[in-house]
């Protein structure tokens, strides 16, 4: 349990409801005693419902094992009724939790939920960065985990270029940063990259993928994927980010626009998350909850959530805001609609029931009829909305660290507490106080020591210590480049903006039309090199990807950028060319050892140009190239 690292070190070893007990109950008990099925009228999803108990009495009574039905059922293996009995450790955990008086996270005094900075105003990014580090360092210290040191310039440079612009720097950009001796050069670089058009492009395509992952070939759209419209959505987001539109404005422009897609490319959002190329209230509600509110309501679409405390009527009360919106891949329109929605036949439970419109765990609008989407967005983007600012902040954190402060990133709820409560409060406050200024939040995160730590393992740590260091953000993660990052980085290294790495022969006739087995240049690369979006530290590429990078004829043919460089700069010595190749791929200069290896290789080769191609091959096939360290 990753989150457990923080708590167990923070105080006594008593099990905690949220960290220790609920995950066990969820895995073994809630299938029959949860939101969907309640055998014996027992619901184990929350502490109050456990205390209330079922037919045979309270499931748990603080400090009293004999009166706790849950304990009585598991001790003699009467429950779970399916699968293996609970292990001795699992039973011990339940026993301790009951004996120690049912402790919960919410009661804990030491949970460090103070954001450290006042909520009502925007602070200088450097001040916010400092507060971020204070949060992270305090948790590390409490757990007695030593963090990794700050990364050297080369490691920082490549990471921040990939994160903020989605590609490696050019050799010139890399050299100029590495040679810069001025003290504030990291902050300056962050500013420069945030101001570059590539920043918007990278965050635009990131949001495009969060909304519509390219590896899903079929879903939600009747088998015809609106690829061009999806790309236009990414470009639209790019422009919003580059124009520094605030997040509330961007979300408002997505969620409240009406009309034809040709004038409002962002409207494809509704079609992408709908079904059979039609806009649906449930698709809109489900994704708005996940993407913009950080809550998972998808289970509650058809029935009460078996594991989380979300009721089906809460989902449909939210869906009602989208009930008057109709459209497809060409047009989206909202007409004033009723304040009620009927649960459709497709739901397992309660089909046909009318549900009154309501904000999620919030007020109920009074009107009988209205244009509901703008009302919803007014509530969602208000500074005191409990979901909006934190959801974005957590997603932004996840983008850089591959793990949210709340995990999964769209599972904000009381019983799934954050690993760093004060930190998520700080980021949410700061984001709201800045008027949802995206660049402000990102600038603060990137200027923190936490972001700038090395991802190398710098001292002897056993597996447990290393896991703790990772879980507590004490070391930067090593991540896998997104397909877009890898493709753009390859294009730069090979000096070929039209790089085509598909494996097709035009004679095969399989590149055109809807029955084509191979996608266009970009789509096919995105499919071939797709990554695990839920965990970017998970390297999932296999033999086909490795063979492409090793043997694809286009990559074997060498780099146009290198050819150009050699043509422009005559009389370059082998060490100079090797250095240029390192800068063009790994964004750093070679170590003496690396330089000697490559230079020897070139000198011993019969043809220097071919030898440089070999060095380039070696660099592109290095782990260091494919990963963000």
């Amino acid at each position, binding site marked *: 349990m990753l989150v457990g690292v923080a708590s167990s070190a923070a105080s006594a070893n008593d099990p905690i409801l949220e960290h220790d007990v609920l995950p066990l109950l969820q895995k073994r008990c809630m299938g029959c005693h949860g939101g969907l099925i309640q055998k014996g009228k027992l619901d184990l999803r929350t502490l109050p419902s456990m205390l209330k108990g079922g037919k045979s009495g309270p499931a748990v009574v603080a400090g009293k094992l004999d009166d706790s039905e849950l304990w009585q059922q598991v001790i003699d293996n009467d429950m779970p009724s399916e699968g293996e009995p609970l292990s001795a450790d699992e039973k011990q955990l339940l026993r301790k939790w009951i004996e120690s008086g049912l402790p919960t996270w919410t009661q804990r005094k030491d949970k460090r939920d103070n954001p450290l900075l006042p909520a009502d105003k925007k602070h200088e990014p450097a001040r916010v960065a400092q507060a971020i580090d204070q949060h992270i360092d305090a948790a590390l210290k409490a757990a007695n985990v030593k963090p990794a040191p700050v990364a050297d310039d080369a490691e920082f440079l490549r990471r921040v270029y990939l994160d903020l612009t989605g590609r490696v720097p050019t050799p010139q950009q890399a050299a100029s940063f590495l040679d810069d001796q001025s003290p504030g050069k990291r902050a300056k670089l962050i500013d420069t990259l945030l101001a570059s058009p590539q920043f918007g492009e990278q965050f635009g395509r990131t949001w495009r993928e969060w909304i519509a992952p390219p590896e899903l070939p079929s879903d939600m759209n009747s088998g015809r994927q609106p690829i061009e419209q999806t790309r236009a959505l990414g470009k639209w987001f790019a422009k919003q980010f580059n124009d520094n539109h605030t997040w509330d404005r961007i979300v408002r422009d997505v969620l409240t626009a009406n009309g034809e897609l040709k004038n409002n490319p962002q409207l494809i959002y509704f079609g992408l*998350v709908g*079904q059979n190329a039609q806009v649906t209230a449930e698709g809109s509600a489900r994704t708005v909850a996940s993407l913009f509110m950080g809550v998972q309501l998808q289970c509650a679409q058809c029935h009460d959530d078996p594991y989380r405390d979300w009721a089906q009527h809460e989902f449909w009360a939210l869906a009602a805001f989208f009930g008057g919106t109709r459209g497809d891949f060409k047009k989206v329109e909202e007409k004033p609609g009723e304040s009620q929605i009927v649960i459709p036949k497709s739901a397992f439970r309660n089909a046909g029931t009318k549900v009154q419109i309501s904000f999620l765990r919030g007020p109920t609008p009074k009107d009988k009829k209205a244009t509901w989407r703008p009302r919803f967005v007014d509530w969602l983007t208000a500074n005191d909305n409990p979901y909006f600012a934190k959801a974005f902040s957590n997603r932004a954190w996840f983008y850089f660290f591959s793990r949210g402060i709340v995990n999964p990133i769209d599972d904000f709820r009381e019983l799934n507490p954050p690993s760093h409560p004060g930190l998520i409060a700080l980021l949410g406050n700061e984001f709201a106080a800045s008027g949802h200024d995206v660049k402000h939040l990102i600038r603060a995160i990137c200027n923190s020591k936490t972001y700038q730590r090395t991802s*190398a393992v710098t001292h002897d740590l056993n597996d447990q210590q290393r896991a703790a260091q990772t879980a507590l953000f004490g070391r930067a993660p090593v991540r896998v480049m997104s397909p877009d990052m890898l493709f753009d980085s390859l294009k730069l290294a090979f000096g070929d903006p039209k790089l085509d790495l598909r494996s097709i022969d035009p004679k095969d006739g399989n590149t055109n039309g809807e*029955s084509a087995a191979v996608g266009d240049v970009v789509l096919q690369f995105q499919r071939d090199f797709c990554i695990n979006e839920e965990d970017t530290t*998970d390297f*999932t590429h296999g033999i086909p990807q490795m*063979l492409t990078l090793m043997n694809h*004829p286009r990559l074997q043919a060498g780099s146009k950028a290198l050819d150009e460089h050699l043509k422009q700069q005559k009389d370059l010595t082998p060490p100079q060319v090797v250095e240029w190749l390192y800068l063009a791929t790994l964004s750093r200069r070679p170590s003496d050892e*690396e330089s000697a290896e490559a230079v020897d290789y070139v000198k011993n080769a019969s043809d220097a140009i071919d030898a440089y191609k070999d060095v380039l091959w070696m660099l592109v096939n290095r782990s260091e190239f494919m990963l963000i360290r």
Partner: protein
Amino acid sequence: MPKHDHWLSRRDYVRLSAAGVLTGASVPWFESLANAAVKRPRGKSCILLWMDGGPSQQHTFDPKPTGEFKPIKTSVPGVHIAEKFPKLAQCAEHMAIMRSMTTEINNHYDAKYYLHTGFKRVTGFEHPAVGCIASQQVGLPGDDMPSFVTIDAGNDKGNGGRFYRSVPGYLGPRHAPLAVQNPARGLENLNSTGGDTDARLKLLAASEQRFAKQYPVPAVNAKQAAFDRAVKLMRSPRAKAFDLEDEPTELRQQYGEHRFGQSCLLARRLIESGVSFVEVFHRGWDDHEGAAKRIAARAPWMDAAMATLILDLKNRGLLDDTLVVWMGEFGRSPGNGSGHFCRAWSAMWAGGGINTGITVGRTNEGGKNPGGTIEERPITAPDYMATLLTALGIDTHQEFMGPGMRPMPMVDKSAKVVKEVLA
């Protein structure tokens, strides 16, 4: 119910190690396989021959006396197939013909999804395709060879709706198929077209070692392992499985010069070398202008390729461990086959250690519309998927963990296996 683990159980590891699978290169696999049947440590392998667009059952495996193609006798008394398939007719003792498929969906893409996954398409996530499930369940982890390969056997002029790509969904990208675009070219990028790979690898090795020492993290280990496997495959004699040039000319000709025949041959070579699931797809069976003329043109290569495949697997002792499946996303309207028809259609299975020499289910022979209704033993898409996975030795009662901690059954709860087929 046990939740499915994404990796092997310890027990599987022990069994696989005992079978020499996990030790990779030390086992001279390929050479030994030419003479001996593969003893797969878990489950069976499968070759899925997918006729994209919806092949007509009355012009193939459920002919009617009044139909455009006449029924002919087969090697099994009482079992008849269409006259255009004389070679397959001689293999009927290895075949189980299912004539009572009834699958609800008449539009191409949704039907392809339904028959590849056993579930109707929903919003929000993608169900894993049968090949991906097989990859996870019966694939040989850590093996040189990929566990799931698709082969593009070409495209007739004619449509068949959007192409369905097998996706692993919540099983993870590891179970995505490796795609062979053209059987004649084999595995793309298997060989270097320039440069001295050995010299390059030597140059790479030292720096990779240094990097792994500095960054001993899972992503680096996984990258280096994948890279090593790719190099191992390039150098492995087993990679020759992708190269049809190794086959004797005579056998290549028996499979047929058509790309479908060569795809079937490649499928056999891959199964023989340890691949668990091969899907050969041929597109263009959406015969709206009538099936007779088009299938008459396709029948010779389909007949030769499939009959040769079945007998070749048999001769090599692989047939009992390899299920061959022929199907599309639905059948075609009784009579001339010009329309889509999901109510009553046929699929053909062969080998796999199932009950063969049989037909399962029956459509009506007489009446106004022969073949329009099922008279016996309807098989739904979930039934079909459960039976297929069970035939491969997979426990279909397992659950996967879907998005949002949602337990996903491997097959739809309504599924009942077709017991008649299972031995």
